[in-house]
Each structure stands twice: as C-alpha cells, then as structure tokens.
C-alpha cells in the first residue's frame, strides 16, 4: 500500500471563504477515512482584511505534526498566495483561478512565480461558481471541486458536508454551493483528463471506531463536560475563547452555567469559589489573563483550594502575538507568583490528550486541593485532528474530595498535617466542620500563624502533597529503541508531535534516536526522565520559546549533555527542523 503524506494548503484573503473551504476539506477527507491534522492561521486583527491560510496534512497513518512543506496549494487569491511559494515542495501542485475578471499584469498571477517543476492547474473558480449558482461566492467550493476531481477524492463526502454546512442558510444556498462544487469537479475532469492524479483512498477497516474531527479547544470543552463541569467562568482572549464559546453552547443543557465575567481576576476568583463549595469549575485564558490570575492562584495554593485553569499559550510577553503559537508560559505556570507555591501543571501533546488531561484535571484538583494548570498553546488549541471519539470512565473522573471522617466533627482541623500532605476537606456549611481558610500562613486549624516552625511545617506539607501527586500523573512515555541512544529528544506540548515525527524519520534512516514525552510538568517524574537522559549520549530539547524553559526546569538531570533547540517565531516547530538538528548532532547531514 502506498504511503500517503499530503499537505494541502488553501490561501486567500479574508472573505474568500478560505477557512470554510479548509474546514470542509478536513471534514470530507476525514469522512473518506484519511487521518488529518490541520492548523489554520489568520491575521491578528479580529476583523478586517488579511491573509488566511489553512494547512492540512492527510495520510493513512495517524498524523502527529504538520510539516513545513506543502504539496498542494489552492490559491483563492494569487497576491496573498505568492507569500506561500517558499513553503511549497519543489514538485507542488498549484490550483488557481485562471480567469480573473480582467487580465492581470505580469507577476500578479501565481502562475508567473511557480517553479517549472510545479504543476499548475488553472480553473475559472469564479466563473464556474457564478454559472453554477448565480454567485461567485462559491468559488471556494468550485476550487474544492477541482481538487476532488484532480485527486479522485470521494465526492459524496464533500457534497454531504457542503449540504450540511450551508443548510442553515437555506436549501437554495446549500444546493447552489453543491452545484459550484460539481462545476469545479466537471471542469477538471474535462480539462485535464490526462493529468489527473488519483489518490489511493484508505480502505475502511471493519469495526472502525467513530471518528471525530476536533480542535484542541473542542477536546478541552468535551473533557470538561465529561468530568461533569458545573460552572465555567471566563473572559475572552485568543486562543482560549473558543473553549468558552463551545461550553456556552453545551453546558447549560447539562445543567451547568457559563458566565463571562469582567476580567480574569474575577474568573479565577469565581472558579475558586465554586470549587470551594464542591462544584467543579474551570476557566481558560492565555498569557496576559494568566498573569492577572497569579495572585489568586497563589492564594489557592496557600488556602489549598482546587481550581482548573487552562492556559492556552500564545506568543508573549504581554499581549505579545495574539494569533501565534509559543510555549513560553511554562515557568509562569510552574512557578508564577510570589512565595513557594507548588501546584500541578500538566500539558497535553495532542487533541486526544487535551480531552483526557482536562477531564482528569478535575479529580486531581479535588484530591490534591490545588490549582491544576492545563498548559496548551495556540498550535494545539486551534489545530484539528480526526481522532477516535475519546471517552473516559466515570471512575477516572469521580469526585475525589477526601472528606473528613464523621467522628472528626467538632475537632476538625482543615489543614491537618498528614504523611501525604493531604488534609481532609469539609465543604463549607457542613455542621460540625466549620473552619477557617486563608491565604495568610496558618496553622492546622486555619488560624493565621507566622511562627518560624509553623511556616516551615506548612511549606513542607504543601510541597509533600504536590510531590505525592506524581502517583496520579502519567509518567513520561518513551519512544524508540530501549538501548543506548545517540540522541534522545525530550519534548512537551504541541512540539512533541513534531519531535516524534522527526525521531521516526531518523529511525527510518537507521539512526539511534529516541523520544521522551512529558505531560506532567509539575511535579515531574525525575527518575524516569533521568533514566532516559542517562542512556542518551546527547539530549535534545526542542521548544517554542527563547530561553529553553523546559530545560530550565529539568535540565539539571541531563548532566551537561543537553542541547537546546529554541524557536521564537510564533510558528510551530516542524519535524524537519528537529530532524535537521538531530543530523547535525549525530554529525552526518542526511537531509
């Protein structure tokens, strides 16, 4: 069976229907049985004119990362698409509108810039849509028709998705759009019969589980719903806003509430309040909002209040790069805030993990009475993957509140020092279990106490408690040979997929490399990480930040053999970049 690895990009100006076309493409391809991973980018301006680009990678095997090279570009606006030429493979296929309303000057058409080894397929997207539906609006669908015809993609999957997507705009619009799609399809079959490039379609394995096409943000929302989220509090910020939007559409139906509050301080405050009463709550934000939350996060550490906080990282510092990706909040998530404030920080590496780690954040927060920070980033939040619909057992998300024994009534100590550091927690208003909570340093009863011995004891307790959470956190996962490695790659978050992709390629080339995935960033499994590093001659830590924050956190375990690969460009780290570094480290350039 041929291995399919196809990256398709659609580029246009806002208003061209670029993102809509990309979405339809992903859905149709997913329906046809391909594995998909897609990531759109659009201008920082919320409205207004700018370039939109959707990139999707399709294959038979599960897609774990985007590559930096595109195999097929659909240009809905040639002037915008010119900027994409450097990212096209040498033999890329380019679909473009070959009948602009009036002839364009030299160089304004992408055909004037495509390299000869690229294959140009011109089709009059606008004219086809106008003739088919009476409006040139459907040119993006005509373009999809051309694509479907050229690659022999299952057209019914497209027709069905188009019909569904535009149903809300009326039968007429939906039917017109399907006709625009069909017009593109017919055109390419008639015009380029001897240049068609049929793509093998994956055979559907019997009994295949249902697949869903989810973004990271949708998976986070679904994970929270699966965990029985009761209250969501938030303030809009890119790239976390879609989580709130998703929950706003679904949580009320499940008896929960979504409240947009006045700012992020309110949001975290409300989450703490809700959890304090025993109702699971969550907020999601990005760097600037997270900064506002830190004071109350440290309050929660001190008062030992549960909270679930998603920090969807974007380019920083400050308001930074709102629509770009970065992994630069790691140290803020782990250490941010005054005082010694151990808390749990976990970071999913793909869409499925967005679901599971978010769901599991709730019982963790309850059991360890601590803020749990789910650290994602734009590239993870906004990407879509088609995955088997995830599910989680009721046990895994069961209420994890350790309640005090009834016989403690009357003598209940909210902050009782225990070997695990976990003190039973009574919900407020429970008769016989009245108690103080405070952010001031306190004794076991919750009464402020600043004496030297007490602060030491309570600091020890809080630290012990969080370190104990390791038992409930996924240990790092190793990929590759179990023996000695020339290069061991250690990665987290959205970069892990690229790292694994690079390591797989390197192994296919016969190199002795491996990869370690870390999802528990604090506390972290020191022994496991150490063991992996110890069998690696060189340890490579690729990260989307400038200072090497994971390296700062765990680098001491590498005994001086760590090489950092840091990128502060706002765009994902691609497998080829990591593979290039592996080659460089091994000392043979195989690229």
């Amino acid at each position, binding site marked *: 069976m041929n291995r399919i690895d196809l990256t398709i990009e659609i580029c246009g100006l806002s208003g061209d229907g670029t993102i809509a076309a990309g979405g339809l493409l992903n859905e149709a391809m997913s329906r046809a049985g391909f594995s998909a991973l897609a990531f759109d980018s659009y201008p920082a301006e919320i409205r207004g004119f700018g370039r939109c680009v959707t990139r999707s990678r399709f294959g038979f095997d599960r897609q774990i990362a985007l590559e930096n090279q595109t195999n097929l570009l659909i240009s809905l606006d040639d002037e915008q698409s010119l900027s994409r030429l450097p990212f096209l493979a040498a033999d890329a296929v380019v679909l473009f509108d070959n009948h602009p309303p009036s002839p364009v*000057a*030299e160089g304004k058409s992408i*055909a*004037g810039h495509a390299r*000869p080894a690229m294959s140009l397929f011109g089709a009059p997207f606008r004219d086809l849509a106008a003739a088919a539906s009476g409006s040139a609006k459907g040119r993006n669908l005509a373009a999809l028709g051309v694509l479907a015809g050229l690659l022999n993609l299952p057209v019914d999957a497209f027709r069905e998705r188009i019909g569904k997507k535009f149903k809300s705009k009326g039968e007429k619009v939906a039917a017109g759009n399907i006709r625009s799609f069909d017009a593109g399809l017919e055109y390419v079959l008639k015009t380029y019969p*001897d*240049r068609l490039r049929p793509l093998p379609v994956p055979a559907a394995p019997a009994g295949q589980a249902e697949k869903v096409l989810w973004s990271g943000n949708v998976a986070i929302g679904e994970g929270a719903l699966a965990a029985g989220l009761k209250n969501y509090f938030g303030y809009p910020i890119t790239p976390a806003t879609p989580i709130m939007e998703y929950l706003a559409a679904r949580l009320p139906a499940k008896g929960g509430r979504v409240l947009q509050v006045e700012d992020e301080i309110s949001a975290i405050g409300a989450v703490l309040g809700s959890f304090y009463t025993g109702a699971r709550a969550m907020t999601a934000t990005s760097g600037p909002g997270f900064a506002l939350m830190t004071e109350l996060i440290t309050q929660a550490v001190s008062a030992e209040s549960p909270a679930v906080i998603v920090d969807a990282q974007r380019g920083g510092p400050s308001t930074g790069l709102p629509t770009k990706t970065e992994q630069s909040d790691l140290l803020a998530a782990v250490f941010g805030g005054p005082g010694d404030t151990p808390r749990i920080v976990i970071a999913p590496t793909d869409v499925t993990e967005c679901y599971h780690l978010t769901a599991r954040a709730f019982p963790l927060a309850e059991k360890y009475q601590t803020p749990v920070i789910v650290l994602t980033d734009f590239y993870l939040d906004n990407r879509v993957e088609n995955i088997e619909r995830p599910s989680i057992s009721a046990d895994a998300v069961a209420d994890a509140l350790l309640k005090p024994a009834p016989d403690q009534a009357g003598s209940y100590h909210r902050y009782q020092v225990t070997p695990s550091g976990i003190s039973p927690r009574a919900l407020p208003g429970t008769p016989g279990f009245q108690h103080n909570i405070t952010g001031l340093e306190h004794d076991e009863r919750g009464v402020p106490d600043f004496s030297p011995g007490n602060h030491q004891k309570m600091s020890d307790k809080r630290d012990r408690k969080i370190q104990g959470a390791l038992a409930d956190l996924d240990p790092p996962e190793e990929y590759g040979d179990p023996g000695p490695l020339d290069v061991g790659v250690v990665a987290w978050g959205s970069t892990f997929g690229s790292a694994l992709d690079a390591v797989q390629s390197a192994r296919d080339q016969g190199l002795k490399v491996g990869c370690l995935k870390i999802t528990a960033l604090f506390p972290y499994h020191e022994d496991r990480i150490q063991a992996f590093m110890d069998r690696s001659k060189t340890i490579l830590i690729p990260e989307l930040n400038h200072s090497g924050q994971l390296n700062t956190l765990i680098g001491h375990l590498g005994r001086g053999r760590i090489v950092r690969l840091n990128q502060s460009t706002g765009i994902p780290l691609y497998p080829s970049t990591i593979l290039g570094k592996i080659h460089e480290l091994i000392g043979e350039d195989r690229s």
Partner: protein
Amino acid sequence: MSAPKFIIIGNGPAGLEAAITLKEKAPDARLTIISRDPHESYRPKLLPDYIAGQIDRSALMARPFSWYDQIGARLRVGQTAVRLDLHAREVLLDHHERLAFDGLILAVGGQPRIPEPYWVFRDLMLPLKTMADADQWIDRLKDVDDVLIVGGDLTGFAVVRALLALNKKVRFVFGEEALWPTRPTPEIFRQAADRLIRRGVEVVPGKLRRIVRETDGALAVTTTEAQTSAGLVGAFFGLAPDVAFLAESGLAIERGVLVDEHLYAGFPGVYAAGDCAQVYHPQIRDYWVSIGYENARALGRIAALNLAGGLERVNVAAESIFDDDGIRVNTSWWMEFGS
C-alpha cells in the same frame, strides 16, 4: 535603460536554440520562455521508442528545469499564449496574465495535421505530437492488438517499428498521403511499401474514406479500395503550424507566420522560427516551410541572432535527412502542405 525583455513562445528545439543564442548574444536581457507543455522540453523523435517501452520518460527530456536557472532564463511551463497584442507589445496567457516584451520569438511549432476530408473522423484517430499523445498511445495499446496507420508521414514509419516491437498487428493505409511531406518518386513509394510488407505490415490499398466505431469498440475502416478494421487508428498526416492564436495579431499568417529570410515577422523585434514559420525564399520568391529537428534549431538560432541585433539569413540549402531503416528523404524544405 533597463535590460530588454525578451519572450520566446515555445520550448521545442527552435525555442531552446533561440534561448541559448540570446543568452550568448544578449546576456543582460531578461528572458522568459513559455511552453504549453506542462513538462520539460522533449525530443519528439524519441516518442516512438518511448511508446515501444524501449526508453523511459526521463530519456526523452532535452533539458532539465535547472538548466534554465543556470542560463538565467525564466521558464513558464503549462502556460499557453492565447493572444498577441503587437500594439501594446504584450502576450496574453491563457490564465489571463499579460506579459510585456521588447523582443519576441515565436517558436510554437506545429500540431498534427488532419486533412479536411478526414476532419469528421478526428476523434476516432490518435495523432502523435506531444508527451500526452504518447501516454495515450501507451494506455490504449494495453487493450488493443491491431493498429491501423493512416496518412503515413515520416513519423508514421517510426511508429510502425514501435508497434511491431510490441508485437501488434499493424495495417497501413498506404495511399497518396504516404511519405508526406515529401513527394516520393513511384520507385521510392514502391520500395517503402515493400519494406513495410517485408516487416509484416499489412498494406491496405486506396485512400481513406470512412471510419466507424462498432458497438464492440473496434473501428471499421473503409478505403477507396478496401475494407478493414482495427482497435486503434493512428493519424500521421504531418504537422501544420500551430498559429491560430495569432490570427488577430496583425501578423501576416498564411499557414505559418510569414517571415522574411531574416525570420523577421514585420513588426519591430518580432521573429518566428521552427515549424511555425513560413520563410521567404529569395531565389524562388515564395515562402517555404521547414520540417525537422535540426532545421528548427538552425532557425531558432538565426531568429535570436537577429533579435540581438544581427542580420543573418537562413540557409535554405540546409539538409535534414529522415532516415528510417534505409528510406532516406531530405526533409529540409518543402512548399506545400497538401490539402
């Protein structure tokens, strides 16, 4: 003054040679070469061997894409010139892009010629000019055991050889169009027919009359003297200049682009070369057309030299020999296109 901008339409032997020469004589000029073919420049002569499976695709290619980078020329493949505006000095491409030029060499070659009486059967016959044609031959031959060649221009003979190598049954309507564009003597004509018969080809007498597709997909062919059938009919009536897109340009067009002995087309900076040109012959005071790879190259060179400021004449005495297993014909110059 900025460097002049030259465009060559055509990436065949005439266009290629013109590009080489222009880069030699006017190295600073900006040069764009346009080709309708969506691939590298190829050697048409080798298409029959390719069909026979004796060489692979890469062996057909005359120059790799990287070569154009090396000489500093911009190659646009898969793009077709659809109009020439001599007033604005612009070429319009099929995807609606306008290219301005200071100098232009038309080297668009020819396209398979189908004589008018057979025009109605054109969809039932397969010509051979482009790579796409060749791929179609290969594809169709998978399901076909017997092939009929009509016309019988010089390349038809090469294709016969390819078909025999593939163990196909070959029939040949050996009528008056055979050996086009030359006018063979009855002796040469007879020799050629004998040679075909000796190779195992069934020579069908007469002139093509009718082709009909039967319900089983086979083609029933009637000539003035016989009736036969075939799975596939190949049309080999030679090539005719492919200049329809120039009809409204103001250039003098007869069958090809009329040019003087310097290949000058009558508008400043505009020249034509290769199979698409009809060249003035001062001695006989008429326009002649050349055929053949070497002629196309020679003309391409002269057009480029003159565009770069020279005043070279074409060498009308040049020879180009077509040699098919002992049948030798000089194809350099001929006047007529037949019907």
